[in-house]
């Protein structure tokens, strides 16, 4: 028997092809390249030596940093006296090595060091909140759609739906402000500012509890605002799926309701929504940054804010680049895994 007629289902047969892989990776590389280039070009649009211009701007704000030494070091590092393409090449090679320069504000600390201090906080906050909102919203929304499939919508669903709709319109930071006012200022339930109590000793239970306490409100702002949106979308998708012929046939086959919900309804609802997650990652990241600023949470967002306030250009560039990198990489990962889940995608 030739291989094609032996059909012991071992390998999942997908549409995964080289074409799809190449296309996705190409997009990824192009996007990053574009971001990096913008990052490179924009500061250099200002006439004159960018370092000196920055120093002048800072001087106006009343900030003095070792002038000559700083300019000299930077000029040499970035070869500002050399033609543009040499600079660009240098910039790229530095970047690959992870060298993003020195922070003006925390000089002589390197940008990388400071980033590493803030990164874990942001990653922790983002990963937990995104997973919670997405998964939670998906399940809730699908459930809302499924339980109202006979056509008439229950009052409970209407109510929840309206709440979700209202909540989903709040930008994360607005919700954060309100939560701060209610829970921190008025009720003294949660702390404000920072990621952990500075007096807590790392490794102790107290430390962990403190982390959770400080993270609750920021996380809540993100989750409450996001969950509704996903739920509404999931419900819409579920409504569409319920009208499909294959669901009709599933019922005709006499399959159990729970089974139909899992294998026919849920699966077909989850997959399209996953692609939307990829697209939403950008705005979620942006929103999270603003939330950190509102809460003075010690992540990348607050770092960005302070850099902007102090015109710490290397820092600003680095954070922006990092965010772009993070989002596009996450998107790429999801895109690469997707064809394994959905047999229709993969570009045959």
């Amino acid at each position, binding site marked *: 028997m030739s291989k094609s007629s032996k059909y012991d289902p071992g390998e999942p047969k997908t549409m995964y092809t080289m074409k799809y892989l190449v296309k996705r990776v190409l997009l990824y590389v192009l996007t990053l390249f574009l971001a990096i280039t913008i990052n490179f070009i924009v500061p250099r649009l200002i006439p004159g030596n960018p370092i000196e211009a920055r120093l002048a701007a800072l001087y106006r704000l009343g900030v003095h940093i070792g002038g000559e030494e700083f300019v000299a070091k930077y000029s040499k590092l970035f070869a500002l006296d050399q033609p543009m393409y040499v600079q660009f090449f240098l910039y790229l090679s530095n970047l690959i090595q992870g060298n993003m320069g020195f922070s003006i504000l925390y000089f002589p600390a390197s940008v990388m060091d400071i980033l590493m201090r803030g990164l874990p906080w942001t990653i922790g906050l983002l990963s937990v909140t995104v997973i919670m909102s997405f998964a939670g919203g998906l399940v809730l929304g699908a459930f809302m759609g499924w339980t109202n499939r006979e056509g008439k919508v229950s009052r409970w669903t209407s109510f929840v739906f309206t709440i979700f709709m209202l909540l989903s319109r709040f*930008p994360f930071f607005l919700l954060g402000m309100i939560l701060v006012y209610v829970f921190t200022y008025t009720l003294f339930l949660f702390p404000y500012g920072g990621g952990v109590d500075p007096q807590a000793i790392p490794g102790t239970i107290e430390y962990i509890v403190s982390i959770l306490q400080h993270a609750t409100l920021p996380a809540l702002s993100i989750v409450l605002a996001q969950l509704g949106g996903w739920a509404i979308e999931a419900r819409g998708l579920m409504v569409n799926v319920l009208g499909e012929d294959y669901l009709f046939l599933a019922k005709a086959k006499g399959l159990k309701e729970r089974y139909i919900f899992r294998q026919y309804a849920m699966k077909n609802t989850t997959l399209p929504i996953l692609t939307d997650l990829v697209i939403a990652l*950008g705005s979620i990241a942006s929103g999270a940054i603003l939330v950190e600023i509102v809460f003075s949470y010690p992540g990348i967002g607050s770092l960005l804010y302070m850099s902007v306030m102090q015109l710490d250009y290397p820092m600003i560039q680095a954070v922006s680049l990092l965010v772009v990198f993070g989002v596009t990489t996450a998107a790429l990962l999801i895109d690469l895994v997707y064809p394994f889940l959905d047999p229709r995608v993969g570009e045959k």
Partner: protein
Amino acid sequence: MNRHQRLGFLSRLKGLRVVVENKKILTGLCMTVGWYIFAIVASYLSPYRPRTIGDVPVNLPPSWEHPLGSDPLGRDIFTQLVHASINSMQIGFTAGIVAFMVATLLGLIAGYHGGILDSVISLVTEIFITIPSLAILLIVAAVIGRIEVITMALLLAVFGWAFPCKVLRSQALILKERGFIKLARLSGANGLEIVIKSILPNMLPFLGAWFAFVVIGAMEAEAGLELIGLGPQTIVSLGLMLNWAMRHVAFTRGLIHWWLPPALVLVWIFVGLFIVSFGLDEIGNPKLKVK
């Protein structure tokens, strides 16, 4: 008008009626436009100036004369609020219109014509969608320094066009395969005619819903940038009010009359626009009705 033209006109009127009768659209429009009109009227009636420091005594609590009190720099908050509302909405709508027109143009071209043009446009769109706009906006805004209002609106538009463009393109692709479009092509209508007469009218609820989304997105991005302090400092906007509030640590000082109103107005406008878009969605797909 001959009989056919009259029928077409009547059916379009009927279409308008469906739109107006839809409770959601009506509610949403009232919320948004209503507030806008209120703000304009109030801004004319108010004797105070929103940005002049020392205009009124500092830190006044809310009263009849000053419905929202005054801020630590001596400006009437209510006046700030109404002026800010007008400005924010105008920036948002301008950016929204620009972004939407670009999105419609590119999306329809890409979807309908296909070919190389489609591939190029699609690629560019994908890139713009993936890049988190705030990051790039921050770089640009921070470096450029003082931004004019127009620059701001354009910047917002730059990142607002991508997603609607993608959606509109796929919608155009779907419609392109529909029977009546193919028929139009066969009967000799050229591309532009088909797009304007046949495709666009069928996408109207869809377009309207997405326009509302684009405006929301632009206003949200603007508020975000202003919050960080990167927007045009020359006019008052809702985000700028929040930025001032944050700088003066209004949250923990309990100056709720300063930061809550702009926040609520933002949400009010967003919800209003969202309801409109949701209502338009329901017109397109009546199965989605919830209430």
